[in-house]
């Protein structure tokens, strides 16, 4: 079965491209502190706002720091925010979705109404308010993005769980004397993992985008730690004289989010050909 999925995936060129880019970015994020050509926080006030050149591939910013090195380190920040935030939302969403779907009744009603409420709140404003209250730092950003993006997944998992719950093999497992916890996590969860995987992959792109927006607004990752969003935010002030300061972080965000979306949609095509 895995083999069939793998073959189908390889035939999907866009998804393969997404996977390659995501893989490349992940490796880059892991090794960035050791491969960056310059110290990303080294200021050189004699070389402020210089355009791309052989010594500074993507130019320098308003404090003379090397933009390429800062982008590299930003990859690490952005991807870790993406992965951790999605990790949080996936755990919460999967657990609550399984719970609501399996036990039904008042749990289902309670949790799904909570989901409705969460989905009707404009998330970005909620995040802004919470960050203004708790103070902006990278851990708060990860936590708050994760804790606001689970409702969609919870609803998805609940729906899948409702249908899997009715399958005869679940009843057969119950007949075998399997405990409720095992029933949920060993027998039902693996059968709903496909939509979770797809949604998580797409979610990483979304989380990176949110983090960039927050950093751009000054409520995300704080300088001097570089993130794509805060580099872009500096770039805005110098848009008319230093285009490279805006272009490269924008491209980085674009390529990364696109790669995760291609990968996510490819996974969906592979795991669930009906849609």
């Amino acid at each position, binding site marked *: 079965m895995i083999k069939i999925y793998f073959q189908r995936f390889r035939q999907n060129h866009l998804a393969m491209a997404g996977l390659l880019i995501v893989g490349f970015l992940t490796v880059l994020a892991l090794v960035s502190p050791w491969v960056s050509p310059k110290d990303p926080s080294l200021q050189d006030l004699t070389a402020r706002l210089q355009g791309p050149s052989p010594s500074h591939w993507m130019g320098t910013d308003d404090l003379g720091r090397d933009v390429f090195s800062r982008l590299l380190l930003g990859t690490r920040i952005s991807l870790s925010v993406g992965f951790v935030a999605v990790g949080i939302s996936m755990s919460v969403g999967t657990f609550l979705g399984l719970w609501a779907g399996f036990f*039904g009744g008042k749990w289902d009603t309670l949790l799904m109404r909570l989901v409705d409420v969460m989905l009707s709140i404009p998330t970005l404003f909620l995040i802004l308010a919470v960050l203004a209250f708790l103070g902006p730092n990278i851990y708060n950003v990860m936590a708050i993005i994760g804790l606001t993006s689970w409702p969609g997944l919870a609803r998805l998992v609940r729906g899948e769980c409702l249908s899997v719950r009715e399958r*005869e093999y679940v009843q*057969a497992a119950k007949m*075998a*004397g399997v405990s409720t916890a*095992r029933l949920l996590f*060993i027998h039902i969860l*693996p059968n709903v993992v496909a939509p979770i995987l797809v949604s998580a992959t797409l979610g990483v792109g979304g989380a990176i985008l949110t983090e960039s927006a927050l950093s751009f607004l000054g409520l995300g990752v704080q300088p001097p730690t570089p993130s794509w969003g805060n580099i872009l935010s500096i770039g805005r002030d110098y848009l008319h004289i230093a285009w490279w300061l805006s272009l490269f972080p924008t491209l980085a965000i674009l390529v990364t989010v696109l790669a995760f979306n291609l990968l996510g949609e490819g996974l969906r095509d592979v795991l669930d050909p009906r849609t």
Partner: protein
Amino acid sequence: MLSIEKLNVEYYRGGKTISAVRDFSLAINAGESVGLVGESGSGKSTVALSILRLIRPQEGHIVSGKIQFQGQDLLSLPPENMRDIRCRKIAMIFQDPFTSLNPVMRIREQMDEVLKAHPSLSASPSRLVEALEQVQLESTRVLNSYPHQLSGGQRQRVMIAIALLGQPSLILADEPTTALDVLVQKEILGVLFSLQKKLGLAMLFITHNLGLVTTYTHRIAVMKEGRLVEEGPSQAVFRQPSEAYTRQLLEAIPRLGRSTG
């Protein structure tokens, strides 16, 4: 060994309740095989699910009645003790072997679930091999397979092996051959009933095919619309059905060289 007294079961359908089993009573002795016959929707499967308390709480519930098994009242047993009964004392074989095995688990893992659920069973791997050999399957290949790699007949044998793993004394077979083609049906029935005799198991064999059960079972109970309409020794019921409904069921069996006009 098992006695069901005045069992009443209801299902919920769109805000209303529908009575699926009404005042149903039946007893099964140790080592005895009983055929439970009736058309679709007559409540036969519901009886089996009630015995193991497997009716999904969202779908329906047991309204009243008593199910005594080896001196225990199954309906008042706490859930924890009920788990000790399942598969260990009473096991069930489901209708459709294409849906009753988990598609993402290897057969070995699914069989292991029974041993893990019941600490009183020895967990040695040879148990799995023995269980599969009992149903005449080649154990090494089957253990490492996923359900989709096996045929319908092989899957149903696996289900029988799983049911026998807990060394139960009563087997509930819910139309175990309905989803299979005729030749495989005969094989499965052969395997099932020879094991029943060999191991001295009691069996409740549910089917809509009256002709099928008479050759294999000691007694037959006929159900219609949730009620027991006739019960007696297989041969007697088959030769001289006292109920009009049973006669109808008998006449519904297609035979070669006879028009059913």
